[in-house]
């Protein structure tokens, strides 16, 4: 087998292809799980959005309560205390008892202290310029009123009632009116802010509802689509399986009919006395024996595939020398190759490590690949068998690669993912009257996987194909090999 110049690139390609296939297989095998995970992920994502919306609405509602409802309550209290300040001052006018007048003055001062504190708090909490402006104006107007109030109180306590009334009418009433208007403006501002926040809360709630509905709708749609896709996939699988089974039956019938017809014809000739002489009888016997063997092999292949598929086969795993596997296969297929005029070129790297596997099964696997190469090689009549050791792609271990290469008809790219499906027959192959059961490659693949390895393919339509068996090199196999040495080679050869 000749080494290509771009061998490294080919090798990289051959390593990349199995990875994509592995991913593809993983996806196809776990499609339901992935679908469920996807739905779950969507649900979680949507849930997070809805929770975020609800939380925003809640925060806005709390802000509205803290900023507006509490603010309105506070401003109501300020209005009451401002009125109380003025009321107490005027009450002092209603009596001549100095003791009572002092009490009223006390009450007025107590109330005005609360108003002053409230205005200071409002200014401390003011954020927007309008709040600050109103707060500062309120503070100034309130101070102005208090100055007049002090004069009025002093006049009342001095006994100058007339002067007190005059002062209140000229100074107290207008200044208190300004305070009242300021407080009304603060209240209006709180109302406006409350309205704005209410609008924000309403908007947020509306958004939440819309999103929730959208999410539920999407989920419903997605779930429906998923169910439909699953059902369709199942149906298609069943249809495909039925078609494959029918194809298989047709193929097997054809495969059986040909040797049976030959056997039947030979038997008829013998029974009818057409066959005369020992030599002719022997020739007919050989024909019958060969055709019977062909039928037996076909039936065995079917049974073997069924048993590997059901994992009924119990492989005897042990350390095997790679050279031994290759030699065994070449020996088994030598007659077939010779009779078909094929040249098998083998190239096995020296000092290949041992692999752990079942010799018979691995031989069967490689034999299927070589038989396929013989079938589909066309006129090239050349088959290459190569065994190497290399780093496993994406894994921290080494693997032995045994590849079977032909220069035959090749496989179209879209069919590469289907050729390992049981009973699959390429339309091109069927059209070319190349008979087969469609079980050879699936059987080889099952065996490879049972040995802990994989089977990969590279092919180009019209240029040929390379099937590679990847077998892991395990430390366990090396250890067993070392333990069994040196008599192991003799044992295996025997």
């Amino acid at each position: 087998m000749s080494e290509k110049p771009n061998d490294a690139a080919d090798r990289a390609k051959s390593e990349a292809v199995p990875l994509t296939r592995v991913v593809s297989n993983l996806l196809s095998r776990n499609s339901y799980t992935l679908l469920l995970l996807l739905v779950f992920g969507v649900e979680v994502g949507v849930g997070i959005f809805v929770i975020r919306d609800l939380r925003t609405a809640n925060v806005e509602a709390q802000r509205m309560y803290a900023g507006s409802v509490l603010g309105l309550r506070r401003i109501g209290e300020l209005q009451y205390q401002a009125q109380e300040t003025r009321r107490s001052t005027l009450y002092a006018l209603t009596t001549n008892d100095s003791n009572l007048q002092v009490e009223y003055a006390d009450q007025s001062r107590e109330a005005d202290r609360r108003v002053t504190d409230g205005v200071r708090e409002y200014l401390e909490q003011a954020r927007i310029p309008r709040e600050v402006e109103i707060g500062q104006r309120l503070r100034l107007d309130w101070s102005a009123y208090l100055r007049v109030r002090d004069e009025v109180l002093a006049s009342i306590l001095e006994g100058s009632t007339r002067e007190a009334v005059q002062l209140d009418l000229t100074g107290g009433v207008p200044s208190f009116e300004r305070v009242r208007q300021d407080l009304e403006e603060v209240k209006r501002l709180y109302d406006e802010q409350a309205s704005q926040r209410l609008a924000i809360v309403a908007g947020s709630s509306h958004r939440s509802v819309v999103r929730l509905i959208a999410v539920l709708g999407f989920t419903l749609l997605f779930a429906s689509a998923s169910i439909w896709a699953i059902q369709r996939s199942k149906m298609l699988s069943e249809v495909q399986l039925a078609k494959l089974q029918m194809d298989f039956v047709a193929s097997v019938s054809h495969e059986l009919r040909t040797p049976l017809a030959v056997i039947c014809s030979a038997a008829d000739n013998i029974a009818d006395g057409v066959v005369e002489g020992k030599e002719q009888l022997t020739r007919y016997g050989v024909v019958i024996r060969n055709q019977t063997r062909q039928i037996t092999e076909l039936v065995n292949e079917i049974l073997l595939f069924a048993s590997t598929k059901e994992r009924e086969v119990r492989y005897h795993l042990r350390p095997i020398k790679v050279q031994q596997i290759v030699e065994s296969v070449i020996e088994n297929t030598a007659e077939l190759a010779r009779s078909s005029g094929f040249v098998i070129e083998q190239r096995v790297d020296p000092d290949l490590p041992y692999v752990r596997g079942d010799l018979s099964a691995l031989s069967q696997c490689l034999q299927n690949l070589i038989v396929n190469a013989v079938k589909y090689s066309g006129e090239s009549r050349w088959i290459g068998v190569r065994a190497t050791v290399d780093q496993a792609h994406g894994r921290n271990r080494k693997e032995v690669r045994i590849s079977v290469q032909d220069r035959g008809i090749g496989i179209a790219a879209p069919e590469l993912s289907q050729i390992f499906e049981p009973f699959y027959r390429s339309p091109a192959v069927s059209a070319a009257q190349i008979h087969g059961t469609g079980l050879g490659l699936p059987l080889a693949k099952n065996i490879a996987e049972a040995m802990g390895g994989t089977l990969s393919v590279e092919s180009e339509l019209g240029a040929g194909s390379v099937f590679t068996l990847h077998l892991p090199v395990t430390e366990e196999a090396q250890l067993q090999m070392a333990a069994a040495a040196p008599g192991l080679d003799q044992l295996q050869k025997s």
Partner: protein
Amino acid sequence: MQFGPRVLVMFVAAVLLLKAAPGRSFGGAGYAQTTSGQSLAIIVNQSNPVENLSFTELRRIFLGERSHWPNGRRITLVIMPPGEPERDAILREVCRMNEKDYNNHFLHGLFTGEVFASPKTLSTPVGVRKFVFNVPGAIGYVRTADVDDSVKVLRIDGLLPSDKDYKVQMQARPAK
């Protein structure tokens, strides 16, 4: 030894006097503080610019003979009701009058126009203090223990209540 009714009456009177002597129970205000050795603080509003008064000026003010402060504010005199030890002390030490003469002085003064306004009467020291706090032109008196930051204490002849030789005392000073 025999005791007659006169002796008995004298004994009861002596007991009552002993009980009354330590505190100011006559005024009915119930202060437990002793009056002995206490000064009376003359208080004005914190806004009043006056810091010091001569004893003569003080007397004129308490007799209603002065109507305005130097800053033009009307003077409002605050006193306590009759029977209170503080009032007794002021009448005795400042006005040098008894209750009857004081009342007559104001009645006469208001009638003749010599006195401009009758004093305001507050029943408690706290009331007096609050009144002074509220009225910029007010002047009153309280015991030194009843003074706080809301009012200003005036010097009399340059002396504060805590100073020696301060003249406005609760207890009559012994004659020199």
